[in-house]
């Protein structure tokens, strides 16, 4: 029709996508181009939103996770169909298990050839269905604005998680006059955020009568930005607090009421407190098996209060006496508004303080030459004042960092907890630094895990972000080696790295300043210098190969059966 009044502007799917992203306030995209997403890259060229070109899709998605974790906003990822999309799978699963908000756009072959094993076709919707909060394949250009809006809404509300949007190439090039703004209408998705008043009162009653109450705070507290409420509540009623691995930073690491991390490599004080408490108040943790150990032995005498935004987490692993489905912040505010008399925790706290003093985290330096990894973490802590954003990979260095870096701030701890993804730490640090350009970001990685995504040195070189990469180089797959030492009679099957690249030369090839340190004195000097610089740096920190992470709850054992606990 030629009638100008009724003529609407036609836009391509790719342009609609970019506009929708702008409307969502997206400031950067982590991605990698390819045939199926060329129309989208072309739209980006014309209409720039910052695009960060990782050197591998796994690097892109872990960077997006790091960004999401410290910014609290959804990370946005773009990859091509087939191999591009499948390279994202690990990161998607990682974000799912750690409840990180991601919106992942994958290209797809044209709808006309979907299902014919076309070039670079992979059924990414089916592949990612069990590891996403939700996913879509766009079948009509008209649906694109609505789907994008829904994807961001789903990813970042309720319990956050990854959402995949698969866009066939002809949808990206297809023309439509669909408008960007549309209300989100998802009748099947209505997360409960306000706590039930009666359940709050019940929790209050149980707490008032408690003699040995304990708060277990997980990453839900961080996601809900409820850390000040958590601290206020714990202080008001003098209830001790322990954290899950991902919950670290929910209460300052040096707070009097903080018992340290709980779980497999948790502190003696925290784990025995779980065994002895009479009320366990779980806020935003999911009772993961690395936390609980053998369930039969977990909090055997406790009434369990469980606050979680995801109703399916409540009762999943541990029977719950008082379920509270709510946003952690809203639940804590509701609890703080209730007048409680009691509990009297004086004796309980005395005992816990005694335990803290008698069984602190410690390591022995006797007869050991060279840098102990624990010392390296403590050094990083001292030089950064506990305020740096710390990312880690997975393995021994991760546990030592969790144990010895006392986190002061809620948003400075980025690690792969649920999936335990090696290769996560370094790209996550780049994403974190992009989100917080003014903060000090240190990636503490293992020599093995670093080699899984070290190609992102090229991205670091390009961006010149002041990320510091500290390789805890024990020339082994340390955590695997530790398990083989402990549970497989020192049969070190495939866990010792006899051949290593020269990490310093490697970094230099990428034009990144690099240092190797072998003594604590050198380490102090080099770390200090590197941390003060505004340039990227890599430090190959040679640490003792045979050092082990203790204390430990052996797999299958209960929290009361820790090994490697030494009294002061």
């Amino acid at each position, binding site marked *: 029709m030629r009638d100008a009044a009724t003529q609407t502007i036609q836009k391509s799917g790719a342009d609609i996508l970019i506009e929708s992203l702008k409307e969502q306030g997206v400031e950067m995209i982590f991605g990698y181009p390819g045939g199926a997403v060329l129309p989208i890259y072309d739209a980006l060229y014309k209409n720039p939103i910052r695009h960060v070109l990782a050197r591998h899709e796994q690097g892109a998605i872990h960077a997006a996770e790091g960004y999401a974790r410290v910014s609290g906003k959804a990370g946005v990822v773009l990859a091509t169909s087939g191999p591009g999309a499948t390279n994202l799978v690990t990161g998607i699963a990682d974000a799912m298990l750690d409840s990180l908000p991601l919106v992942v756009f994958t290209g797809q072959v044209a709808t006309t050839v979907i299902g014919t094993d076309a070039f670079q076709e992979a059924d990414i919707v089916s592949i990612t269905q069990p590891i996403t*909060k939700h996913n879509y394949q766009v079948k009509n250009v008209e649906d694109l604005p609505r789907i994008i809006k829904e994807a961001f809404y789903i990813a970042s509300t309720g319990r956050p998680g990854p959402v995949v949007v698969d866009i066939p190439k002809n949808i990206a090039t297809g023309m439509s006059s669909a408008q960007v703004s549309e209300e989100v209408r998802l009748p099947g998705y209505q997360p409960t955020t306000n706590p039930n008043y009666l359940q709050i009162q019940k929790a209050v009653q149980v707490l008032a009568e408690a003699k040995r109450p304990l708060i277990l705070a997980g990453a839900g507290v961080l996601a809900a930005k409820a850390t000040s409420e958590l601290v206020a509540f714990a202080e008001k009623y003098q209830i001790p607090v322990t954290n899950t691995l991902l919950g670290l930073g929910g209460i300052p690491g040096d707070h009097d009421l903080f018992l340290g991390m709980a779980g497999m490599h948790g502190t003696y004080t925290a784990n025995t407190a779980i065994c002895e408490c009479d009320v366990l108040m779980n806020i935003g943790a999911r009772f993961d098996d690395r936390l609980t150990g053998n369930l039969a032995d977990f909090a055997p005498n406790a009434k369990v209060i469980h606050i979680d935004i995801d109703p399916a987490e409540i*009762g999943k692993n541990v029977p719950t006496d008082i379920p509270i489905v709510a946003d952690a912040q809203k639940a804590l505010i509701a609890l703080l508004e209730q007048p409680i008399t009691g509990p009297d925790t004086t004796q309980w706290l005395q005992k816990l303080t005694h335990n803290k003093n008698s069984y602190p985290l410690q390591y022995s330096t006797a007869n050991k030459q060279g840098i102990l990894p624990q010392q390296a973490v403590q050094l990083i802590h001292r030089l950064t004042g506990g305020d740096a954003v710390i990312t880690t990979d997975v393995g021994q260095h991760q546990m030592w960092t969790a144990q010895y870096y006392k986190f002061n701030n809620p948003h400075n701890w980025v690690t792969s907890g649920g999936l335990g993804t090696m290769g996560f730490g370094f790209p996550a640090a780049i994403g974190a630094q992009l989100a917080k350009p003014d903060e000090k970001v240190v990636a503490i990685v293992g020599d093995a895990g670093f080699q899984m995504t070290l190609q992102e040195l090229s991205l670091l070189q390009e961006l010149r972000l002041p990320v510091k990469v500290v390789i805890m180089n024990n020339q082994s797959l340390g955590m695997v080696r530790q398990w083989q030492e402990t549970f497989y009679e020192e049969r070190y099957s495939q866990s010792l790295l006899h051949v290593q690249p020269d990490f310093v030369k490697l970094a230099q090839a990428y034009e990144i300043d690099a240092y190797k340190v072998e003594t604590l004195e050198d380490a102090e000097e080099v770390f200090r210098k590197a941390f003060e610089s505004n340039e990227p740096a890599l430090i190959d920190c040679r640490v003792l190969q045979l050092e082990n992470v203790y204390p430990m709850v052996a797999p299958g054992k209960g929290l009361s059966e820790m090994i490697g606990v030494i009294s002061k």
Partner: protein
Amino acid sequence: MKRIITTTVINQSGVLNRVTGLLMKRQFNIESISVGPTEQAGISKMTFVVNVEDERKLEQLLKQLQKQIDVLKVNDITDKAMVMRELALIKVVSSPAVRSEIYSITEPFRAAVIDMSKNVTTFQVTGEPEKIDALVDLLKPYGIKELTRSGVSAFVRETQKAPAPQQLSIL
């Protein structure tokens, strides 16, 4: 314990896959499943028969289903007054000599003959799964050439005898 669960879902492509995939991921064993459109456009209903160990597993199953974005409603209707039907098509060897004998068996079950050839008769029967089991058992000795069952479809009756059993803690 055997539970009958109905879910109302938005009929997006892949929703069946999503729901059965979820059950597989969480290690729930589906005994039967049937899906079809409802009276509302764009809305489908699934009926599952599932074997779960205990109440906690059941609660987890219902919550996980409820969590799906495309799932509007989840109901465990096992303990309610309900109607439940399954359809079976049974092809039985039936030489002329035994044909009337077979008819006398199928008649009380109100099975209908829907196809016939010289030595084979195909019956259609609807009813609760136990009724179909019983008919199949009776026909087995004659030789069942082929059997297909639709899976259970069910919903609650308009009037319930007793108040519905106590709801699970938080749904």
